[in-house]
């Protein structure tokens, strides 16, 4: 496996980056160039197309191939024109949740429907980060953002399911904490003949610290958020290695932690963790969960008990199928029109 340094010198244009400290985009760029490298794809055959927003800066200006940095939400449609005219171009679209599922949502579902041979990497940080942390179509209900000071009145999209429903033939979802799986999915997407969609839940220290109300120093924050993504997700079909549940504090998480320690003693392994939907909670690992549940639910410092998978986001490869690919069909149409077949 090549070192980061090697990958950087081969694939990255410049040393400077516009990303905030701790941003997930660098991780995604890393996974992307690693995928390209491991597949041995010549960099000059890769066309990266991006829209507007933080995600757009993953390829442009960082990636050392052809890049097309377009208008907000429209990257897929620019990519469609280029890919149709030159199907030799390994066409990759980088988009975000606002860019791809908000303003560009229509193009996203139509590209999936056409099954055009584009690999689309959608970075979901659950807000409009570049413009200051506004409410996005992926922001969870009730969250406070810079445009929902009283809580988000809307319900979010499940983008991977939306794109799967629209007909994409490869659909996966990972987080920035799942770099091995993400790299593998990008490789699969690049090799897949058809619309390959990869949603990446990503940490955004700059905005998520406010939106999710995570109190941490700037140094701690990125790893806290990365841990949060691990804690708030599960992988489809992969059994959990340990048995656990969550104790949701009624007031201060530290009080709940102390109360749980006193009540359970050494019979359980306890830790304070960040959870996307439950907040800061006590994670309780134990061989037998029922007695633990009984004891914890009697404590005043604990509001309620949540099961291991409650409120978690499913990860994995959700769709992997074969269907006629759009540019190939267009070529067949041409041959038919010219009487060549």
């Amino acid at each position, binding site marked *: 496996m090549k070192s980061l340094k090697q990958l950087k010198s081969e694939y990255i244009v410049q040393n400077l980056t516009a990303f905030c400290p701790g941003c997930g985009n660098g991780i995604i760029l890393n996974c992307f160039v690693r995928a390209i490298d491991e597949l041995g794809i010549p*960099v*000059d*055959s890769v*066309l990266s*197309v991006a829209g507007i927003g933080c995600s757009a800066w993953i390829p*442009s*200006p960082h990636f*050392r*191939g*052809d*890049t*097309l*940095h*377009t*208008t907000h939400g*429209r990257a897929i*449609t*620019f*990519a*469609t*024109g*280029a*890919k*149709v*005219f*030159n199907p*030799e*171009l390994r066409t990759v679209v980088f988009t975000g949740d606002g860019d791809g599922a908000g303003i560009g949502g*229509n*193009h996203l579902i*139509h590209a999936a429907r056409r099954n055009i041979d584009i690999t689309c990497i959608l970075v979901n940080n659950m807000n409009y980060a570049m413009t200051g942390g506004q409410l996005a179509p992926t922001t969870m209900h009730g969250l406070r953002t810079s445009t929902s000071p009283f809580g988000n009145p809307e319900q979010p999209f499940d983008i991977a399911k939306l794109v799967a429903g629209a007909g994409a033939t490869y659909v996966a979802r990972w987080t920035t904490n799942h770099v091995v799986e993400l790299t593998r999915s990008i490789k699969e997407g690049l090799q897949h003949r058809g619309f390959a969609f990869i949603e990446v839940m990503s940490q955004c220290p700059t905005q998520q610290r406010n939106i999710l109300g995570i109190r941490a120093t700037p140094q701690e924050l990125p790893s806290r958020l990365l841990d949060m993504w691990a804690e708030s997700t599960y992988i489809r079909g992969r059994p959990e290695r340990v048995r656990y549940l969550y104790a949701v504090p009624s007031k201060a998480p530290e009080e709940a932690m102390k109360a749980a320690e006193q009540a359970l003693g050494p019979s359980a392994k306890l830790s304070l963790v960040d959870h996307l939907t439950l907040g800061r909670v006590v994670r309780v690992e134990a061989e037998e969960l029922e007695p633990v549940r009984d004891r914890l639910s009697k404590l005043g410092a604990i509001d309620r008990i949540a099961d291991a998978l409650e409120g978690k986001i499913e990860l994995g490869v959700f769709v992997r199928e074969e269907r006629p690919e759009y540019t190939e069909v*267009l070529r067949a*149409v*041409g041959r*038919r*029109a*010219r009487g060549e077949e």
Partner: protein
Amino acid sequence: MLKPGRHLVLGNVACAEGALRAGCRLFAGYPITPANEIAEYMSGEMPRAGGYFLQMEDEIASIAAVIGSSWAGAKAMTATSGPGFSLMQENLSYAHMTETPLVVVDVQRSGPSTGQSTDPSQQDIYQAKYGAHGDYEVIALSPWSAQEMFDLTIRAFNLAEEYRTPVYFLADGMIGHIKEELVVPEQVEIIDRKAPSGPACTPFGTDDPSLVPEMPRFGQGYRLQVTGSSHRPNGVRDMSPKVHAGKVERIMKKILQAEPKIRDVAKVDLDDTEVAVVSFGASARPCYGAVKRARDEGVRAGLLRLKTIWPFPEEEVSRLAERVDAFLVVEMNAGKLVKEVQRVACGRVEIASLTRLGGVVPTLQDIHAEVRRLAR
């Protein structure tokens, strides 16, 4: 594609034929009246010609696919009408900033909004020039016959390639739907964009006096950075005042300095004229008849018909202003082109405006009466 020779065709079909003849090999569009026949014809003929027809999910996607394909090496176009043209404006601003050659056909219909959705108008001439955000200069052509739907579409592609810019083709519902003779020539002149002359190409800057940079395409190994943000000659983003101003000034100047070459006007009886009618597209047709009738009656009338609307042929209009008594500007809108004539004539002569709203072409009788009034 039609064989060389004489044909009876719809204006919109002549436009599509011209595009194919000019080398257009990708069409992306969305259904809209009165431009539909262009897309329908392209859907059949484009695959036969070895090109690609894409019906996109909206006009935003259509123009975006056209821009993307142009950078992949295609001569590409879209065709629409006023509402669709409005939807395209953001991406057209992008196309100007990235100096992307392409052709947009606007078969104008009567607005605002859905207005009279099937009836002709000439209301989009300012939308073509000022529709999008930012500063830029445009080339816009206007045909008055099925033959010019063919000839000027070819010219639109050649201008787009020569100056590396979007070119607007402002037809209207009447010319799009007129059925007339089209003579397809044996050969047409084709201009192609400047390919990179070496490995050190700067796609967004040049020392050439034309101010038009070379244009590589994706996949050639140039590792292009194409962005709508301000950029240096090599494409790298740079927001500094100097880089931004330099870029915008160059893309405007490359069009304006070429105006004498881009200019295309038809002159009828203008040598000794007292009343000069100025018009374009469908509304120029009755103007022609009105001028001829006035001439038969001894009135020294003439017609200046603009085939190139933008850049506005200031020199032609200014020269006329020196020697005519009056201008009569005839158009199918509330009075748009007349403002350009007023600006250039600058108070030197009387200027009358004959406009028609309601989706109807001005009548020969009305124009004739106005010419006579001005000639008295």
